């Protein structure tokens, strides 16, 4: 029952003659609630592993504080934190048996033999390792190794469990099974879990809350639903989703006391935004974001729709992904995801795209921040 | 936390100093000796404070009393070693490129045979070489020694350069071939520049080996073609060995190697192929 609090955590790797000084993480402030799974998600090099290592105590941060509940652990060595860390590549002692591997963290703590026996049996039972306890760890498949490593992490019942891409080195099949084990562990244990990954599907599936990072900065810390529906920045909008949000330049215009958003390069398409105009007034340029799956596509002209030409159709059985060439900027291709039907346009055919206002999100172009969530 | 870091610093510094002393003391002694007068060299306890002199250097270049002639030896060494190393690098790199890129029957056996040349101690062939060179009139000639040095540097050059070429992705050559360039252009303009660090490192090592070569020079040269190592041996008169002059020769013979090593130092760091292939 420990919540993890990060207060303005930053990490700077000092420069040398050859390497420039790099800021790996800056200003990470968040509270990871106890007994919840929090994901740290971002592309490689975004600072997520650095943050995790700081929480684990492997590399202390260069600024800011880390608390476990009320205790300042910023400079405590790992062993005094009661946190366990599971790496991407399973660390398993090859020359020991599975039993010894599991018992190792307990032996270090001078716990008596009977207790060790009991705990190892319990853990092995829980993870389905009972049959191979006496086997040497050498030569076991990667998925079993990762299970052993997981077992070793949870056997001392840590207050905080830190996972660094534990599934990404496994094949899809074992990933599926191990993810189930992980869920089981997470739900049945009295522990706060921090899960670092670059794979959004893992984060969306497993986590209660996700911190999306890019270039050392936390862009959004929210529930998976909110991250998907209301991304806080254009980066999150682009990063989350497969494919991500379409981001289109537009500007606000006033006429007859009302305010409209007009898409740059496209005439006669506008959305009324009078209700939110105060939020947009300071923006020089505005970016309109809409997910490919919320765009309506038709072959005939509809009012307030964007004309385009269908470039590529990737059909996937029950739905299709279309790349539509339009006059929008900065990227003139708009991606559309739509259920398969006989009404689908042909390649090179003319199409019209309609954006349902309820799904439109407006961002400030310069800062990339979300300004308006439009509603009906 | 702070104090332990300080102790660590002191320890590291101390160990470094000891290592430097261990490796460099002979060189320091040599340099110091080169600037000593005869009387100071032979003190029972080494003298660290003395009146420096350049007499030893003057002696080896002008007015030497020994058989060795400093100016000539330096000229000889520089000429033989530079010429042979440059030629060996050129021939060796081409051969290595062939070994790296073309598959042909017996390739691996051939490259092993080339390397096997290095397995044999030089003393084994020095006598036959003496007889051979004497009979064809190559003994004591510049050409004779250069040919011999090329021959002894080649296996090393081929072996080293081949491993450097092997590290360069074949796709670089293939891309250049498709661009329409000839094999020779590909080698000179596309492959060699990428292997630059390896090339320069090989050049440096090869130069150093040849520069310090003693055995063949001893047997196959005449006083007109003596190189530095041989001049050193001959720095004596009937009554004594001239340690001061030997030290002065030593100092001078370090200089070219030292200059080349400093000049090439930044290229000796790997990392040139970074970015070629991802």
């Amino acid at each position, binding site marked *: 029952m420990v919540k993890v609090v990060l207060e303005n955590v930053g990490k700077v790797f000092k420069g040398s003659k050859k390497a420039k000084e790099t800021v790996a993480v800056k200003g990470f402030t968040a509270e990871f609630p106890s007994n919840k799974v929090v994901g740290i998600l971002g*592309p490689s090099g975004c600072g997520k592993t650095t943050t995790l290592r700081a929480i684990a105590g492997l590399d202390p941060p260069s600024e800011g504080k880390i608390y476990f509940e009320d205790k300042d652990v910023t400079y405590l060595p790992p062993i005094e934190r009661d946190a366990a860390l599971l790496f991407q590549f399973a660390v398993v002692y090859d020359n020991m048996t599975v039993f010894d591997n599991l018992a190792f963290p307990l032996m270090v703590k001078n716990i008596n033999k009977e207790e060790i026996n009991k705990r190892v049996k319990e853990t092995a039972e829980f993870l389905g390792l009972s049959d191979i306890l006496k086997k040497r760890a050498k030569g076991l498949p990667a998925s079993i190794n990762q299970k052993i490593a997981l077992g070793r992490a949870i056997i001392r019942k840590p207050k905080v469990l830190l996972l660094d891409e534990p599934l990404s080195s496994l094949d899809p099949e074992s990933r*599926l099974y191990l*993810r*189930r084990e992980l*869920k089981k562990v997470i739900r049945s244990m009295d522990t706060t879990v921090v899960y670092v990954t670059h794979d*959004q*599907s*893992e984060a*969306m*599936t497993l986590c209660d809350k996700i911190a999306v990072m890019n270039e050392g900065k936390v862009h959004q810390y929210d529930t*998976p639903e909110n991250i*998907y529906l209301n991304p806080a920045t254009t980066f999150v909008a*682009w*990063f*989350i989703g*497969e*494919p*991500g949000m379409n981001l289109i330049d537009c500007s606000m215009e006033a006429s007859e006391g009302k305010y409209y958003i007009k898409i740059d390069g496209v005439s006669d398409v506008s959305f009324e935004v009078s209700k939110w105009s105060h939020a947009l007034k300071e923006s020089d340029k505005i970016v309109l974001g809409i*997910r*490919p*799956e919320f765009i309506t596509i038709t072959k005939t002209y509809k009012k307030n729709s964007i004309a385009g030409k269908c*470039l*590529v*159709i*990737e*059909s*996937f*059985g*029950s*739905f299709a992904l279309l*790349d539509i*060439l339009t006059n929008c900027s900065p*990227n003139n*291709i708009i*991606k559309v*995801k739509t*259920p398969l039907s006989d009404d689908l346009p042909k390649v090179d055919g003319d199409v019209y795209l309609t954006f349902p206002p309820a799904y439109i999100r407006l961002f400030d172009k310069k800062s990339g921040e979300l300004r308006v969530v439009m509603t009906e | 936390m702070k104090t332990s870091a300080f102790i660590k610093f002191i320890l590291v510094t101390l160990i470094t100093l000891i290592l430097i002393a261990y490796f460099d003391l002979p060189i320091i002694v040599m340099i110091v000796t080169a600037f000593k007068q005869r009387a100071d060299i032979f003190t029972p306890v080494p003298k660290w404070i003395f009146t420096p002199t350049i007499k030893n250097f003057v002696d080896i270049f002008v007015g030497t009393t020994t058989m060795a002639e400093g100016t000539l030896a330096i000229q000889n060494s520089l000429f033989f070693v530079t010429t042979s190393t440059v030629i060996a690098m050129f021939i060796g790199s081409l051969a290595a490129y062939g070994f790296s890129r073309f598959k042909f029957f017996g390739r691996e056996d051939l490259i092993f045979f080339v390397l096997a040349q290095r397995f044999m101690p030089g003393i084994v062939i020095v006598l036959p070489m003496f007889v051979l060179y004497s009979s064809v009139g190559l003994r004591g000639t510049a050409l004779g020694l250069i040919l011999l040095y090329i021959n002894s540097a080649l296996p090393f050059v081929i072996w080293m350069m081949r491993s450097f070429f092997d590290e360069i*992705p074949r*796709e*670089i050559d*293939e*891309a*250049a*071939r*498709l*661009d*329409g*360039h000839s094999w020779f*252009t590909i080698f000179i303009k*596309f492959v060699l*520049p*990428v292997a*630059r660090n390896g090339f320069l490192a090989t050049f440096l090592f090869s130069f150093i080996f040849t520069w310090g070569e003693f055995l063949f020079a001893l047997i196959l040269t005449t006083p007109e073609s003596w190189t530095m190592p041989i001049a050193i041996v001959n720095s004596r008169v009937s009554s004594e060995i001239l340690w001061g002059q030997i030290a002065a020769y030593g100092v001078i013979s370090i200089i070219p190697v030292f200059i080349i090593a400093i000049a090439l130092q930044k290229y000796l760091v790997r990392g*040139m*192929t*970074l*970015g*070629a*292939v*991802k």
Partner: protein
Amino acid sequence: MAKLVVENVTKKYGPALTLEKISFTAEEGQITVLLSPPNGGKTGICKIVAGLDEVDSGKVYLGDRDITDLEPKERRVSMMFQKLALYPNMNVFENIASPLKALHLPPSEVINQVEAIANKMKISHTLYRKPGTLSGGERQRVALSRALVKNNADLYILDEPLTNLDAKIRASMRAEFKILQKEINQTMLYATPDPIEALALADKLIVLDKGKIIQQGTPEYIYRNPINKFVATFVGYYPINLIEGSIIEKGEKIILQTNLFEIEISKLRDSVKDHINSKVTLGLRPELLNVVKKEPKVQESLDLFYIKGEVFEFEIRGSDTVVYVKINDQIIRVLESKITKYDIGIKVWLQFNLKDIYLFDAESGLLIR
């Protein structure tokens, strides 16, 4: 621009791979995609066509020329490598200019052409930088520019041009590439291990495995009529579900019997009549399955089947959900094109349509229907 004909090409690449009697045609102005799992032989074919590797036997024709024994530079082909093979010692300009310099074009001409392609590929700002300082996406564009700058080539070979990019950028490069292809309108041979990329880009798709051509045709045709289990599993958005079973006759009815369920397939009588009483494998594409949470009423129609199972696991992928439904110890993947969350272990019904099922001969793996 010319048509490429590869005829009976055989080539042994060590013990692991031999290209066997490869024959195909890449039509003028089209993208022909070679699709295979890693080490399936596609790179070998690219290199043989480019002239970098020699054939053991067989012929390669480009237009009306027999190019089998020609040197690469005499073939009028251009190639982009999977490893990109940018020249690290030269800047971007020199890299792209390399094929033009080999043609001994006047310098002003070289500058014009390089600048034109750099503009088109949006890399003008990198022209005087070394490849080592570029991002992955930029390097990819430089390599592509170098392959395309030579405008007199008859054939452009692209060996896994997008493989090294990260998934996010790769998806957007696909569309860009398609536009580019339309613009330059050249014959292209494109190798990729990614079935989604292949389905999206190909005019003609050639599926290879272990050095042999397994099937060739348009992407739609191959997706709908995979010749065997391998193609059905490999060519698709997500691996197909395979269920072992057999076809039996019960009176008038024809029944497909598996460990998981029995369904009536009398309507398919014509296609399965030779396989009655023999073992078959049922293939169900995850994207053609549905999960229903409420118990269906009576069988609504003969063509729609409902199979009871439980949710074993689910995962959200972008804006889709993959649901793993467990039926009698076998796990069936279902792809839903929306985000849905499930409670693990709840009862659900798998729904599929008779017209969407694939049947394979269990032994030979060949498609029955």
